């Protein structure tokens, strides 16, 4: 692939306002470097859930379902490493302390059963999440990338990351805004971090009842049935920043 193909991709990308179209184009373009799937997401840390942090989901549906429902992101060396480095890396470069654990090896084995065998991750700074990352995945056994190909992937990933953030902001400006109180935001953040209403109460020195009252208020503001949906909606509306 030539550098101009990367710049052409960026120009097309910047014309697009639909995340699906951006995802499709990035999938097509990265396919020329041997990749079949990709995910652009906030990197979950602690007890955070993955699903609300996802910006572009180009993983096979059944694999994403398995990876998120089994909370593989909490043990997967690739995901753990993506939370602690800003240096792009191939999956087989993940250091052993997180990559070579029984749980992480099990995730790799399961991934291989879904024909996902190698990949390349571009971590990025985020103002909304701990960090975010684009993870490119391939069905081939090894990801052999020249320095130029790495540079091409990093360039595509980071400009895509920037543009997806820009259109999310544009969408938000055009929607009627939902404002959360500081308390509602706090309880959602702690819920997102895996805490129960009782635990949230302990942390914020309020009663469990009051914590629940704030969670209910947040659900009502977003007009959703579950607190998980409220977290997802708050994340999409960029209200969950630290």
């Amino acid at each position, binding site marked *: 692939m030539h*550098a101009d193909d*990367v*710049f052409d991709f*960026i120009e097309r990308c*910047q014309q697009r306002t639909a995340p699906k179209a951006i995802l499709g184009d990035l999938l097509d373009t990265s396919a020329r470097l041997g990749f079949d799937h990709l995910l652009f997401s906030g990197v979950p840390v602690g007890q955070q859930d993955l699903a609300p942090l996802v910006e572009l989901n180009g993983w096979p549906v059944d694999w994403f379902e398995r990876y998120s429902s089994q909370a593989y992101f909490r043990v997967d060396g690739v995901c753990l490493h993506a939370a602690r480095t*800003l*240096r*792009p890396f191939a999956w087989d470069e993940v250091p052993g302390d997180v990559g070579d654990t029984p749980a992480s090896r099990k995730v790799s084995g399961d991934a291989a059963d879904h024909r996902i065998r190698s990949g390349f991750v*571009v*971590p*990025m*700074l*985020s*103002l*909304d999440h701990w960090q*975010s990352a684009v993870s490119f995945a391939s069905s081939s056994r090894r990801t052999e990338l020249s*320095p*130029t190909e*790495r*540079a*091409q992937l*990093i*360039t595509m990933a*980071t*400009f895509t*990351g*920037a*543009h*997806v*953030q*820009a259109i999310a*902001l*544009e969408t938000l*400006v055009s929607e009627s805004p939902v404002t959360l109180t500081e308390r509602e935001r706090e309880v959602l953040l702690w819920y997102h971090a895996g805490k129960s209403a009782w635990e949230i109460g302990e942390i914020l020195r309020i009663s469990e009842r009051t914590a629940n009252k704030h969670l209910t208020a947040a659900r009502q503001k977003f007009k959703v049935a579950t607190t998980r949906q409220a977290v997802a909606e708050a994340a999409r509306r*960029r209200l969950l*920043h*630290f």
Partner: protein
Amino acid sequence: MITAHVVTSENLHLYQSEFDEFLRRRHEAFVVRKRWRPPSDDGRERDEFDTDKATYILGLEDGQVVTSARLIPTTEPHLVSEVFPQLCERNGVPRHPDWAEWTRTFVVQKERHLGLKGTFTQLCAAVMQYAVEEGLSAVGGVQEAYAMPRLGRFGWKLLPQGLARGFGDETYIVTYIEVSEAALASIRTVLGGEWPALVRRGRPQSFLPERRVVS
């Protein structure tokens, strides 16, 4: 909230102590923390681009310099043209009077300065306001590749000049940011309706070369 002061060779005398503090903060940020340059004996960091062609935006809070930006016309020698021209493989080093190179941005490391509406976003809003007021078309230069989504987060359009390239542990990319009223409005949206004041003291100095009036 910071107050953003525009400092040029014309009004530097009004900012002696702030400018000195700025150079010391730069030393902490770029010599001690990032190790981009060797330490200097006087604990102040300067480079060959600190000339009277440079315009500084100093972010002050409680009388202290907490953030900064340096803008240099790309028609003058600047970091991209002198050190990183190889990163502009797309169309060569851009050199336009209304394109400014933006360097030497640091943010003091205190918790209250972090976050979406924090010091970094405030500084970026001040830089964009200055660029709009001065009639610039683009600001930018060498960036850490991993930092780019933050600029997108402000609703800003990026103009890539080349591919990313690794230098040791870092990956750099040269990109400029389109300057526009829309870009200013969108970052102000991120800040939620409250943004830093841009202060100009002393004799005004325009960034673009003065146009001669032909009579």
